[in-house]
């Protein structure tokens, strides 16, 4: 039937939640650099504190600029809302800390960003939250790892660094069969490449530092709720379904059928752990999001050309990009990531560690640093940097070899990037002779 339809992605990226400022007429989202907000009266103040009215009190809890970012990311993801955090790590911690405590258990993919692995394996275990790691493609392993005290399943849409595509429909079904939510790290894909909620994920987060911001300028994270998980039916989450003494005895799942998780996360985790985002950071990430569709298309276009170049180069033993037929996630990528598999991928260089070092040090356009998702092209050697805390066995389980090189393809002319890689590969070849 004819009728209204959802605004398109590109429109939401520019307009969702941002009307001209009623006070000044400013068209762009203003930066509200203020710690706090004046109450109209004592009654108004009390009603804001007691969640009788919607509004802002103190910028650790909420801020108008941050709210635009939060709601815009939720709009792009098809979620019900979001919380901006100080970093992607803070978003992951907020998600887990809202649902799990001492004595809880998490089932996580073994193909994770090194920082996420550190948090789960080393740090949260110190606070009594234990994690079982399973290979992302080991479907029976996900099911077998669930325990009575498990609180969530967690994986990356594209596993770091081998780009294993998480089978979200299958893993989320396993989670839901046990009354558990699936949390995914969507940093590498962004909602332009994949909307995990459409495939069954319940919660997701971004390191907004990467593609959402897109310019390598700020650190930030965003935690998003899809709103479809039934916390009451699960029976495993008294934090959301029983009175919380720390906030007026509130039962969050009664207050908001679809927003219970975010209510608790904001009124406990953001309030008490305090890993909030600066409004200036939120504003910069919003600038990035406005061009996200254009940038992601170019990132993918450039990446495909670079992948083709590397895959046919004699100094390269393998390229891990799911669009290549030999990749173990090729079929899943065609199903879940038809627009492309992002612009971060790894390849293995033939030869010694010294040749690997020669390769990286000969690059001119690619910047050697620990980040991805910049508009500039980046390179790193995971075994000696992001994953250096892992021993050889753990590295192998995560799909990382001593000669693995990770690239993040930027928005430069693709011919220039390929020329840079050609020069560096030649230097690596010479270093072996």
């Amino acid at each position, binding site marked *: 039937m004819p009728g209204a339809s959802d605004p398109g992605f590109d429109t939401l990226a520019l307009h969702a*939640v941002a009307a001209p400022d009623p006070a000044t007429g400013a068209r762009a989202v203003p930066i509200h650099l203020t710690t706090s907000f004046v109450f109209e009266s004592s009654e108004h103040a009390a009603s804001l504190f007691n969640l009788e*009215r919607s509004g802002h009190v103190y910028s650790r809890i909420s801020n108008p600029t941050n709210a635009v970012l939060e*709601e815009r990311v939720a709009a792009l993801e098809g979620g019900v*809302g979001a919380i901006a955090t100080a970093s992607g790590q803070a978003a992951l911690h907020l998600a887990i800390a809202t649902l799990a405590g001492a004595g809880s258990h998490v089932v996580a993919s073994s193909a994770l960003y090194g920082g996420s692995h550190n948090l789960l394996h080393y740090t949260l275990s110190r606070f009594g939250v234990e994690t079982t790691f399973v290979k992302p493609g080991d479907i029976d392993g996900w099911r077998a790892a669930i325990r009575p005290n498990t609180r969530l399943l967690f994986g990356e849409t594209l596993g770091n660094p081998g780009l294993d595509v998480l089978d979200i429909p299958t893993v989320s079904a396993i989670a839901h069969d046990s009354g558990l939510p699936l949390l995914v790290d969507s940093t590498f894909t962004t909602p332009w490449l994949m909307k995990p909620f459409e495939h069954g994920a319940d919660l997701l987060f971004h390191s907004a530092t990467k593609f959402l911001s897109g310019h390598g300028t700020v650190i930030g994270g965003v935690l998003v709720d899809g709103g479809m998980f039934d916390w009451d039916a699960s029976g495993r989450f008294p934090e959301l379904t029983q009175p919380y003494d720390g906030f007026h005895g509130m039962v969050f799942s009664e207050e908001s059928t679809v927003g219970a998780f975010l209510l608790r996360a904001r009124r406990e985790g953001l309030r008490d752990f305090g890993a909030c985002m600066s409004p200036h950071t939120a504003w910069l990430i919003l600038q990035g999001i406005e061009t996200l569709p254009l940038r992601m298309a170019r990132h993918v276009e450039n990446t495909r050309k670079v992948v083709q170049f590397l895959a046919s180069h004699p100094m390269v033993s393998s390229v891990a990009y799911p669009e290549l037929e030999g990749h173990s996630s090729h079929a899943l990528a065609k199903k879940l990531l038809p627009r492309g598999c992002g612009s971060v991928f790894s390849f293995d260089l033939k030869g010694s560690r010294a040749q690997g070092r020669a390769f990286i040090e000969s690059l001119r356009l690619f910047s050697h640093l620990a980040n991805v998702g910049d508009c500039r092209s980046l390179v790193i050697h995971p075994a000696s940097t992001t994953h250096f805390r892992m021993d050889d066995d753990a590295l192998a389980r995560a799909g990382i070899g001593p000669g693995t090189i990770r690239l993040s393809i930027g928005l430069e002319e693709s011919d220039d990037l390929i020329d840079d890689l050609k020069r560096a590969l030649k230097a690596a070849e010479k270093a072996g002779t």
Partner: protein
Amino acid sequence: MELTVNGRKAYAYTGGKPFDAALPCVVFIHGAMNDHSVWNLLARWFAHHGHAVLALDQPGHGRSDGPPEPSVEALAEWTLALLDAAGARRAAVVGHSMGTLVGLEMAARAPGRITQLAMIGTAYPMKVSDALLSTGRDEPLRAIDLVNNLSHASIATKPSFPGPGMWVHGGARALMRRMLHGGTGLDGRNLFEHDFRLCDAYANGLPAAAQVRCPVTFILGTRDQMTSPKATRELAAALRAQILTLAAGHSLMTEAPDGVLNAVRQALARTEEPA
């Protein structure tokens, strides 16, 4: 709180405070494919300002057992029975959309019990196009998206509901999807089709209006595409309703939460009988 109404479990959110039947009661009645949570802010405000609040889940919606009631008139009888179960002899009624028709029927059937009636986002008749009904039957997720878009006047609503960081469109869509999945006892029909057929079928508005004795207030969105303010004139005249307008679409409670609070406070402050 949970109650038993006609032998079935019924749920009503009480605004974060225990229900006290000795206080003036306000009952909030949600619209099609919604539940009590659309009243969250209003319910909390009134509960913390001297009222006993019942923001109910209609049968087959949210936490109340199904099956859904078969007509607006039956829903009105069920809601009056819920007031009995809660021990509330008299109550002000605040309805939204389909819930306004239920409130109208309650005020007509029990004029001595309803003290004020606030009708938010209302129209009469509340006709639903055959195209939407058939889409609701065959493609309910698509129908939800259509209704969701028609229900909102803007993609830039501020402040958010129920608080900062919540995307109003996404929350409304997820709530309708949750209701669709949770609907029970529908004899093969989905809850979308059921609820919208109830709106479409209700034909007792003007006879009911003639029985109403309490002051009535219409709270209308000037940009409402679901229940256009133009479609209220005959009923408003019959009820001698006070009309308050807000710059919002059909989802007034989420698009204009402060404006709706002020309007409902005005509506519930009225004590005079209609002329």
